[in-house]
Structure formats: C-alpha cells, structure tokens
C-alpha cells in the first residue's frame, strides 16, 4: 500500500496551548483511519492544517508526494482533499438538493452566470449523490430544518461530490442520536468503499471507531500517543485507561 498523505513534525501552538506538538502521520491509500482523543487534543487542528485553513508553525505535509503546505483551502481541494465539518456547514436557506447541487457545480464548472444551478445534469448528479446517502426523500427540505444526522450526512455528501481522493471527516456522528449512529456509519462505509475514497475521521464513539476504522491514531495534547490496527489500539490497556476512559478488561457486550 502506498502513502497518500504524509505529515511530518507538525507544530502549532495557540498562545500556550499546543494543538500540534510534533505530529508525524502517514495515511495509506484506501484505508479508513480514525483519530480519537480527548477534547482539545488537536484533532480538528490537524484537519485544519491539512486542508490549508491553519498554517502550522513548523513541519511539512505532502499529498501524493507533493508538498501542500501554504496552499489556500480551495487549491488543496482541487488536489483531491475534501473535508466535512464538526458543525455542518450547510446553506440553511437552501434545500438539501440545492446544497448538494452547489457542491456538484463547484466540482464540475462553477463559473457560468448563464445556466441554472439546477440544470438537468447537475440535478441528476446531485440526486444520485443524495440517493447513495439515503437522503433523496429529504431532497426538498430546507437544510436548516433537518435533524443532526441528516445535516451531518448532507455535509459529508457535499464533500464527496467534490470527488476527493482523501476525505477528512470531523466527528461524523457527534450530536446524532445513538440509535441513528450505526446507520450513518453503514452508509459511509458503503459509499466511501464504492467511491474508493481514503478517509480520515475524528470520532469520540468507540463503537463507531470499531466498526469503521482500519487503523486508529490516539491523540493527546498535540501528540500521537498510539497508532496501529484498530483492534490492537482499542484493546491497549493504557489507551483505554487514558483516552477511552474505561478500565482495562475485555469489551463486554
């Protein structure tokens, strides 16, 4: 397997707070990598640095062998890295379909003032996208009227519309009712495998991590404490004590 994204020696501090304190991480082509860790560990900051929103004070990031540090977000997107957000970033006054179509347009040819956003080909692509996410029944709902699960999925669908090679998802199931979480995860696994997208996702729910992740990286105070196959990391007694917050012992049903 080849390395798709490679971060080396990332450092970022806000005043005295260390959001990244020497982060080295390789993301492999085709894998699903989970980032776990307590609040304030620097997980979102890693996504922000990788997508060009925050500039680290030191270190380097390469995507597909090319350095991307210093590029603005919109150029990094064009190289093939898309993201979703901890708080979904939808246009509330637009429908789900319009939001999706805007992402389709952003990828396919945005700069035409003459043709409608909901032209047949964009509408078709947006509907197909929503269908794959199970969102088609909500296509004509206003985005600000959705429940959190649907908002998260729409947000992720918009990132997938950009046809990325690497998708960074910030807490895809946070704020979602526990009963809905697994359905969202199943949808994501199916859609992303089908599209052949490599995914990095930040997650607090260990059941989601166990179902979704190939590998897990454990973040704490801007450092990676542990990195390895999901089964191994999730069973590590120290990780469980320090980060997951359950005493060592077998995961009981």
């Amino acid at each position, binding site marked *: 397997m080849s390395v798709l994204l490679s971060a080396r020696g990332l450092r970022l501090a806000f005043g005295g707070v260390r959001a990244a304190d020497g982060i080295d991480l390789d993301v492999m082509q085709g894998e699903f990598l989970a980032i776990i860790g307590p609040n304030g560990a620097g997980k979102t900051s890693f996504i922000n640095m990788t997508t060009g929103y925050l500039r680290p004070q030191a270190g380097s990031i390469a995507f597909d062998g090319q350095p991307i540090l210093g590029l603005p*977000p919109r150029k990094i997107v064009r190289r093939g890295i898309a993201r979703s957000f901890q708080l979904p970033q939808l246009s509330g006054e637009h429908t789900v379909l319009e939001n999706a179509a*805007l992402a389709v347009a*952003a990828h396919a040819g945005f700069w035409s*003032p003459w043709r409608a956003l909901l032209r047949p080909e964009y509408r078709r692509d947006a509907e197909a996208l929503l269908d794959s996410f199970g969102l088609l029944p909500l296509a004509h709902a206003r985005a600000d009227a959705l429940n959190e699960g649907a908002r998260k999925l729409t947000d992720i669908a918009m990132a997938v519309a*950009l046809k990325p090679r690497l998708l960074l998802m910030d807490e895809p199931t946070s704020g979602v009712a526990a009963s809905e979480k697994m359905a969202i995860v199943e949808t994501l696994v199916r859609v992303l495998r089908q599209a052949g997208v490599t995914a990095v996702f930040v997650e607090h729910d260990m059941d989601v991590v166990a179902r979704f992740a190939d590998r897990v990286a454990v973040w704490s105070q801007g450092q990676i404490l542990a990195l390895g196959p999901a089964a191994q990391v999730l069973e590590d007694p120290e990780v469980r004590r320090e980060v997951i917050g359950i005493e060592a012992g077998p995961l009981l049903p």
Partner: protein
Amino acid sequence: MSRPGGKQEALLALAGAAALVAIAFGAPWLKFVLTIALAKGLAVLGILLLLRAGQVSFGHALYVAFAAYVVAFLAPLVPEALVLLPLAALGAALLGLVIGLFVSRYREIFFGMMNLALSMVFYSLLEKFYHFTRGTDGIRVQPPRVAGMALTRDGYEWALFGIALGLCLVAGWLARIYLASPMGQALSAIKTRETRLEFMGISARAALLFAYVASAFLAGCAGAIIAMTTRHVTPLLGYWTASGELVFIAVLGGAGAVLGPFLGAIAFELVRVYAAATLADSWQLILGSVLLGVILFASRGLWGVIEALLRRGRRA
C-alpha cells in the same frame, strides 16, 4: 416555500411596464420622474446583488456619478445616446473592477465603510477640481442624438423613457438568470457559509467580485440615464446621501426578487414628487416614517407584500 414562479414574475414585470407606459401617456410630466425612477431601480438592482451576499455598499452613488460625468464629458465629442450609455456603463464597470479587487477582501461593516470612504473621496475630487468639473456648479449636458436622430424635446423624453424601461426589463431578466446560476446561488453562501465555499474549491472573493462589477455596471447605466435625462450633472450625484438612498430603496422594495428594486424606486420617486408638492419640507419625515413602517410591518419590502397577496390569491 411557495414563491411566485418565473412566468408569474415575467407577467408582473410586463404588466408593470405597460402600466408605466400608460401613466407616461396620461401624465406626460411624469415621464421625467419615471425615467429617473427606473434608472435608480437599475442601480438598486446592483445593490440587491450585493445584498444577496449579505454585503451593503454605502458608496454606490460613486458609480452613478462616475458614469454621469463620463456622459457629461463625452457628450460634446460623441453626441449619441446609444454610444454614451454603454461607454459610461462600461467605464463604471471598469472602475468597479479596480475598486472591487480591493473591497472584495472586506465583509459587512468594513465592506460598507470602504465603499463609503471611496465614494467620499470621489465626491471631493469632483468638487475640488473646479477647472475640470466646474465644482458644485456642475456641467450642463447637451441632449445627444438617439440612434442618429435629433429629437424634439418630447421625443427625446420618450426615447430616454423607453431606453430606461427596456434596460430595466433586460437587466431584471439577466439578473434573475444570474441569481439562479451556481455563481448567483453562491452569493447567499458568502452571507452564511463563506468558508464552505473555499473548501469546495471556490474563491468567495471572485464570486463577490463578479457581483460587484455587475453592480457597478448597473449603477453606471443609471448614472448615464440620469445625466441624459436631467441634462445637468453635479457632484451631489455621488454624495453619500445618494448612496444611502439606493440602500433605502432596496429595503423599501425588498430584496426577495428582481422586481423589488423597481417597485421601490418608483414608489420612492412618486412619493417624493407628491410629498414635495403637497407638504413642503416634510419630505424627510414622510420618508423616515415609510421606512420605519416597512421595517416594522413588511420586512420583505413592497415585493414581500405583493408576494403575500399573490400567495393568498392562489390559495383562494
């Protein structure tokens, strides 16, 4: 949400245009007022484009005045309305591009104030360079030919009225197409979710710049028509109160549809004429009260009222 469709809006626009022509026939002295109102409607349509992106310019009279002075300076050299108008509008668009490259970095209050500041600079230039602009006295504009014809006074007024009305219909139609396009729909994303645009690979600045240049072009059309109609340009065209007036009309007419600016502009000019005629010196009072009423009771402006009536009509 049920909103009047494109066909309904087009019908309303045509009916409105026919009504204006009828008024101009019935009360010839209103032709002048309506021409000015339509011109202002064009400038306010530009304000509406920026409002869609959540940005309010308090300096767009700059482009109105710029185009008006272009007409005043060029009229002796090219005495042809159909050449002067596009030249002045393109000149304003070009100035809009130069200034837009700069102001499109700013948002909200900074965007508004930056535009205001630049318009004040331009205003004082018009005032100070007396030997060139004749200062506050302004410049007289000789009526140009229209399509090669030297017209009588009445014919000239009809011609300008017709040009203004035609431009309004075309501009409203084009603005509607633009607003429905990805670039136009992205404007409301600038208002609420600008970073999202960047993370979709779209330069929000470029999207705003396009709207800004379009708004300068529209204000330029307005300035050219006003210069040829009033046949006298003064720095007051670019004074900050004139910019405020455009924003006022935008709020009065409503930003929900491209008809709003024209409704607002016509209502504004008619109220002004009749208020000035009946109650001298109470113009500001009436204006202020009307604006208060709109904000308190019809926050979507006159267009919002019409929209509500149409919806009720359809349900009944």
